[in-house]
């Protein structure tokens, strides 16, 4: 199935990706951002907060936004 994934980490992009049926948000996070801690991200499905065991549905809009970002003094 296909979902819209918005990754606000790094370059920040939105794209449609293939996801296996029955994939939970937690699993999807670990697949897409391996080595990262889910607690450091604001994860929304269809703009709403969801539990980690939420099973992603076809056409869902999943966004992941880091909550710990290092700013700088010069761009």
């Amino acid at each position, binding site marked *: 199935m296909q979902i819209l994934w918005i990754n606000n980490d790094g370059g920040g992009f939105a794209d449609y990706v293939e996801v296996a049926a029955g994939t939970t948000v937690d699993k999807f996070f670990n697949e897409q951002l391996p080595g990262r801690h889910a607690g450091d991200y604001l994860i929304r499905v269809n703009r709403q907060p969801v539990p980690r065991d939420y099973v992603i549905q076809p056409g869902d809009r999943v966004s992941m936004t880091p909550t710990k970002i290092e700013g*700088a003094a010069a761009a």
Partner: protein
Amino acid sequence: MDKHKKYLLRVASAIQTGLLRQPHPRLSDAEATLSRLCSQLDGLKDTARKLSLCRQRGWNLAGQQLLRDLRYTVQELGAEATRSERIVRNPPEPTPPLGQLYNELIQAEQEFDDVEYRRGEGKLVVTTAPIVLEDIRLGRFEMQLVLDRLGAADHHDALRIVALEPNPASSDERVTHPHVSSEGLCAGDASAALRAAIISGRICDVFLLARAVLENYNSGSPFVSLENWDGTPCSDCGSCASPDDTFYCEGCEHDYCNDCITYCRSCDTNLCRECLRKCSLCDEYICESCLQACRRCGARACPACLDDNVCTTCIEKEKHNEQRNDHDQQRKGENTRCGPATAQAVAAPEHAATAAGSALHTDGVGQAGVLPRPRRHRNRRVRRHSAA
């Protein structure tokens, strides 16, 4: 349709207009790369003309040099052509539909307590909770999205960060947050994501990303570090120092850090480098009031290099002259007693020294070189050498 929904749709429409109004960054990217391509092609035309000239006139060496230079130009041309091709080929980012922007506003209202559209100013404003970083209260911030600047290439133009209860850095009032200066957010790691979110109309993500930057502190690259937030800026190097490490220059009456303050080597007064002078004799740093002029030569020197307002150089010179005068007096006296032969002996003292003990004949010119010299005279000569 309820009133609030109408309001949100009106705001969504304003955002959409803002996104359409400015030239899309893709256009400016395309313009820049094509402009570079054109100038490279102009350069190639020029090189081709020169190469033709070299071939016609048999300037082989110059021709070879031109070919070497051309290698780099051709490489660059290839890279630029690839960039241009990529920009032209990629489909343009579609302007987000009104429905998406409406949903963005709904989400923003869920994520933030205070979302306000200021129609007169053309700004969508979201307020953060009070921000405290490393025990320093920075207060709440307004994240202002300037709608008619949404298409600007730089996110600084579109997003302004205004401190509501400003507690700026003591060294720079424009810095209201370690990563905010003059209301501009330096997003650091979030820069690319912010730009992408603005272009694609993901308004809520813009605010979430900006908030994430504001709620964190990167000690590696702040405008002013939190460590020095309340410190006093050094008037020389600009770094902030805590009150314990701040020193007052009694000359210019400014504050300096530990590295930039120094002191007068004579009176120990704390002074900055600008307020100190160098002793012209020993090169030590001395304050203006300790520096005195030598009454003989006028050289400005420290008290250690002056004796009764005469510098050590003048004292040395004086001694030297006295010794020379004594020597001259001695020579005159000897000339009067011994005649010309003795004078020659004095002129050649080494000869005289080797002949010490020989008899002196006032009228014997041939014996002049072996003239013995008085002990007193020889001793004085030795002393002068050791003094020199």
